[in-house]
């Protein structure tokens, strides 16, 4: 069978897989947001819930959001990358199936087995619940993550094969050869560059995750096999940092590919673009010690690295992607349809999240901000106001009617409500952090409760607007086109 006929016959099947990805993405985002609002409402004493359930829901929200952000990122990367290289539909589907199996295992662990070890399963907490959850429950959680990780690795393996087949080496796909020779090929797709970066970092990250997951699993049943707690923490935060960051690096492909369709301006690779993505490949890998700034037993040079690389990591985001997006719209004639609005909001959210992140990456600040609500404050900026709007922009674009010219006014309204409520919700996290409120506390002191109550209300509005987008998007699911 020639590739041409293959791609023609494969089309409807691939479209169906994409629809399954999208339906899963939307459903899980809404449910996990509900879990998030419940947590804020519990902290705000609007509803009563015992701490064991709070921490189970916290674990669910963390694992569910990180996982679904990864899945949504994969769908965006797959959607655009398949225009340049030939990906295997079966492996795209396999990732989804393994994901769902993993989700079922995790749900069982948390809802039936009462596992509440936090999504980061920090060793040795999964094995030491003081009788709250069993080793089997912990194993189901850890095993669920492992199954999900294997799905991602399969997908990336296919990406690696496809990129190598077309470009010969990952260095060429990333554009390193162009940086060295100084001859920039402006026809080299940004999507290929970003996908290669994600492939490299997330394969390493997920493998590190697999190592610590397997060790944790073994330790659960053979407690004499102990793990060094500091090594475990390094592996977990390395994996966690890379994985969650990769979700944004996958989703930003939607900005590079789609924003030009609304601005009428090209987004081509340039020398700074390639340099930024090569630098990010390295920086995402070595920046993770900023999660361990309060572990004084870490070698000092690693903590210095954590701070300095955190600063440097801001440069590609601000001076390449944000700058590029702004030049896309500057004195242009932009068609401000829903997707364009979401994509620009996403770039803003990502850029803005860099600010509190970098500030907290400074050791002297981290000494009084680490593990306060400042931390969820910064990453909800990236994720809720960055990553998620990239996904929404992508979905509204690919599901729009062929000749859609009229704007859906209700979605336009929803956009503003979502943006304002999400901003307010995030600022309540940041402000609580300023007030030294610890993160991951089921019950708050009386003085902190007013912030929680405001946050619960804003979070509820975010949830309702997301529910509205979900209904709209599900209704348009049949309009989805692979060539939009």
């Amino acid at each position, binding site marked *: 069978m020639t590739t041409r006929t293959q791609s023609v016959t494969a089309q409807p099947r691939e479209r169906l897989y994409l629809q399954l990805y999208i339906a899963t993405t939307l459903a899980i985002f809404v449910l996990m947001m509900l879990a998030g609002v419940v947590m804020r409402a519990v902290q705000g004493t609007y509803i009563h819930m015992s*701490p*064991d359930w709070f*921490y189970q829901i916290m674990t669910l929200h963390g694992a569910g959001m990180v996982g679904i952000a990864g899945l949504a990122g994969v769908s965006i990367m797959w959607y655009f990358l398949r225009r340049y290289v030939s990906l295997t539909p079966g492996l795209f589907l396999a990732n989804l199936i393994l994901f769902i199996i993993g989700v079922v295992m995790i749900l069982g662990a948390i809802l039936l087995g009462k596992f*509440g070890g*936090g999504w980061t399963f*920090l060793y*040795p*907490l999964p094995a*030491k619940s*003081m009788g*709250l959850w069993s080793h089997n429950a912990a194993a189901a959680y850890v095993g669920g993550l492992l199954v999900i990780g294997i799905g991602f690795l399969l997908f990336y393996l296919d990406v690696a094969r496809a990129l190598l087949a077309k470009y010969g080496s990952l260095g060429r796909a990333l554009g390193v050869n162009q940086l060295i020779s100084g001859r920039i090929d402006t026809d080299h797709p940004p999507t290929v560059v970003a996908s290669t970066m994600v492939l490299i970092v997330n394969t390493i990250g997920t493998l590190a995750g697999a190592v610590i997951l397997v060790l944790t699993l073994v330790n659960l049943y053979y407690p004499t096999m102990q793990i060094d*707690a*500091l090594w475990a923490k390094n592996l977990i935060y390395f994996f966690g940092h890379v994985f969650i960051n990769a979700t944004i690096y996958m989703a930003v492909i939607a900005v590079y590919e789609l924003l030009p369709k609304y601005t*009428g301006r*090209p987004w081509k690779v340039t020398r700074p673009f390639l340099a930024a993505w090569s630098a990010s490949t390295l920086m995402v890998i070595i920046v993770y010690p900023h999660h361990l700034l*309060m572990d*004084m*037993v870490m070698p*000092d040079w690693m903590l*210095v690295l954590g*701070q*300095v690389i955190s600063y440097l990591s*801001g*440069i590609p985001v601000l*001076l390449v992607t944000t*700058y590029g997006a*702004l*030049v896309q*719209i*500057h*004195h*242009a*004639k*932009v068609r*401000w349809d829903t997707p364009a609005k979401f994509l*620009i909001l996403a770039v*803003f959210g990502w850029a*803005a999240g860099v*600010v*509190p992140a970098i*500030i907290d990456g400074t*050791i*002297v*600040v981290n*000494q*009084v*901000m*680490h*593990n306060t609500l*400042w931390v969820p404050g910064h990453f909800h900026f990236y994720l809720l106001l960055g990553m998620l709007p990239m996904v929404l922009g992508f979905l509204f674009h690919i599901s729009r009617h062929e000749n859609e010219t009229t704007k859906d006014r209700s979605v336009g309204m929803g956009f503003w409500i979502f943006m304002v409520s999400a901003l307010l919700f995030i600022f309540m996290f*940041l402000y609580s952090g300023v*007030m*030294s409120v*610890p993160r*991951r*506390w*089921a*019950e708050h*002191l009386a*003085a902190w409760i007013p912030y929680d109550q405001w946050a619960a209300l804003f979070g509820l509005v975010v949830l309702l607007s997301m529910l509205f987008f979900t209904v709209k998007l599900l209704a348009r699911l049949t309009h989805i086109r692979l060539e939009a």
Partner: protein
Amino acid sequence: MQHLAWYLTLIFIGLLIVIFVSFIFSSKSGESYEEVARRDYRHRQKLFWLVIVAGVIISVTTLLPWPHSATTNPANEKVVQVVASQWHWELSQQQFHSGDAVKFEVTSKDVNHGFGIYDANMKMQAQVQAMPGYTNTLHYTFTKPGEYKVLCLEYCGLAHHNMTTTLTVLSAR
């Protein structure tokens, strides 16, 4: 420090909002891309070097002296052992005088915990991780009398939020 972080965040995010809004307002004129790109990208390299220089200055001033080192002569420090376990704190000493320089040697018997010192206004003053198998040191000098609190700052299970204790700081000797 917390308020400095807050105001810096508000200023820089405010600046980003102003930039985004003004660019969005400009997005109706339809000028040629080549012209706009040439003008806009001229500034990028300058901005890059500005950021690098600012980053170096901030890094040096915030890393020297090393933030985790003692600010006083180590010989004058009181050494206090801190052992965390699910879900309580054991300290070799919980009463201090204002002006006492203390070296907390922090470890854990079971899972990871976080040793966070809060002053009488519940404002965080300092913290360090408590990790099984390791001893982290935190140097801290009490400067005001009052009832201080220790809060657990690393999620450690069911009663994590109840894992607190009190430090009494008397007026200076």
